[in-house]
C-alpha cells in the first residue's frame, strides 16, 4: 500500500479511493488528479448526447462540481468511473428534458448525401448491414439527427444500451429505474427508431413516385 502524504501525490500510482480520501480532507490537488483521470470519459458520455462543444463542456463542469460536493457519498471500493458516469448521465438526461420539443424529422433535415445513404440502407435490395469506412461520417451525421428526434427517455436508453454497451442492471443503477422499466423502455425506443427510419423511407418513396409521375420520360 502506498503511503501518500499531502503534497507528495504520485498521480499515476494513487488509487481512486486514496485520492477521494485526500480530496475530502481538503486536498484540492487530489481532486484535480481525479478530474484529469476521468474527464475524457465524462466528455465522451456528454458527446453521445450533445453536439455543441459548449453544452458538452457545461455538462462536464456540472458533473465534476456535483461530484466534488457529493464525494462523501462515494462508497470506497466501488467503481469511481461508474459513479461519475451516473452523475454525467443524469445531467445529460435532465438537460435533454429541459430542452424544447423535437419536432418531426423530415427529409429536408438531411442533406442529399444523407438521404441517398439512408435510402440505400433501407432498400430491401441492399443486403449489407455493415457500415463501410467511407460511409462512417454520413452514418454519424444521420445518427445524430435521428437521435435528436427521439424522446429523452428513448434516446438515453438506446445510447446507454447500444452505444455505451451497458447491461440492463447497470443502466438501472445509472438512471435509477427498475430493470423491468429499462427493458420496457428499450423495447419502445427500438420501436420508435424503426418508425423514424420507416417514415424517412416512405417520404423518399413518395418523392420518387412524384418525380416519376411528373417526368415519365
Amino acid at each position: 500500500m502506498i503511503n501518500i502524504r499531502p503534497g507528495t501525490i504520485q498521480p499515476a500510482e494513487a488509487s481512486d479511493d486514496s485520492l477521494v480520501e485526500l480530496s475530502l480532507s481538503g486536498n484540492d490537488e487530489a481532486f484535480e488528479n481525479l478530474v484529469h483521470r476521468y474527464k475524457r470519459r465524462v466528455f465522451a458520455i456528454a458527446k453521445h448526447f450533445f453536439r455543441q462543444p459548449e453544452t458538452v463542456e457545461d455538462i462536464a463542469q456540472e458533473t465534476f462540481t456535483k461530484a466534488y460536493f457529493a464525494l462523501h457519498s462515494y462508497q470506497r471500493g466501488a467503481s469511481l468511473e461508474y459513479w461519475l458516469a451516473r452523475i454525467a448521465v443524469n445531467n445529460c438526461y435532465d438537460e435533454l428534458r429541459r430542452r424544447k420539443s423535437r419536432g418531426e424529422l423530415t427529409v429536408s433535415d438531411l442533406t442529399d448525401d444523407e438521404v441517398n445513404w439512408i435510402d440505400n440502407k433501407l432498400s430491401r435490395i441492399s443486403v449489407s448491414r455493415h457500415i463501410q469506412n467511407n460511409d462512417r461520417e454520413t452514418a454519424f451525421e444521420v445518427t445524430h439527427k435521428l437521435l435528436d428526434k427521439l424522446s429523452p427517455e428513448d434516446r438515453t436508453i438506446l445510447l446507454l444500451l447500444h452505444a455505451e454497451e451497458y447491461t440492463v442492471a447497470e443502466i438501472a443503477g445509472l438512471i435509477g429505474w427498475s430493470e423491468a422499466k429499462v427493458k420496457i423502455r428499450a423495447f419502445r425506443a427500438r420501436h420508435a427508431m424503426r418508425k423514424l427510419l420507416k417514415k424517412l423511407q416512405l417520404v423518399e418513396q413518395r418523392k420518387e413516385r412524384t418525380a416519376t409521375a411528373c417526368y415519365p420520360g
Partner: protein
Amino acid sequence: MKDNLHKSDLDHLTFNLLHNFSDRIRGDQTPLPPYFMSRLRARIAQEQQISQVWEFGVISAKNWLFALSLVALMFFAGNLLVLNTHLKILFYNIGKQSINISDERDIVHPDVEDVEALNVDDFQKE
C-alpha cells in the same frame, strides 16, 4: 414474414448506426478545452459561496424560528392561565347563583302571574 425481416433489418441498422456513432466519439482525439480546470475551480468556489450564504440563511431562520416559538409558547401559556382564572370565576358565580336559587322558597316568574308560585316543599312531598 417480409415485414418481420424488414423489422429485423431496421433493428440491425439501428445497432450498427449506434455502434458506429459510439466508436466515432470514443476515437475522437480532439483536445479538451484548455481552460477546463480553471473554470471548474471557479465554478466550485462559486457553489461553495452560495452554499455558505444558504447555510447562514438557514441558521438565522432557525434561530428566529426558535425565538418565535418561545414567544408563541409564552403567549399560549399566558392565555391558558387567564382562561383558567376566568373559568374559576365563572364556576364560582354559577355556584353562588345555585345556592341563592335553592334558598328561595317561592319560585316566581314575573311574567307568569296567574300560575301559583311553586314551592320547594311541594316537590319534596312528591
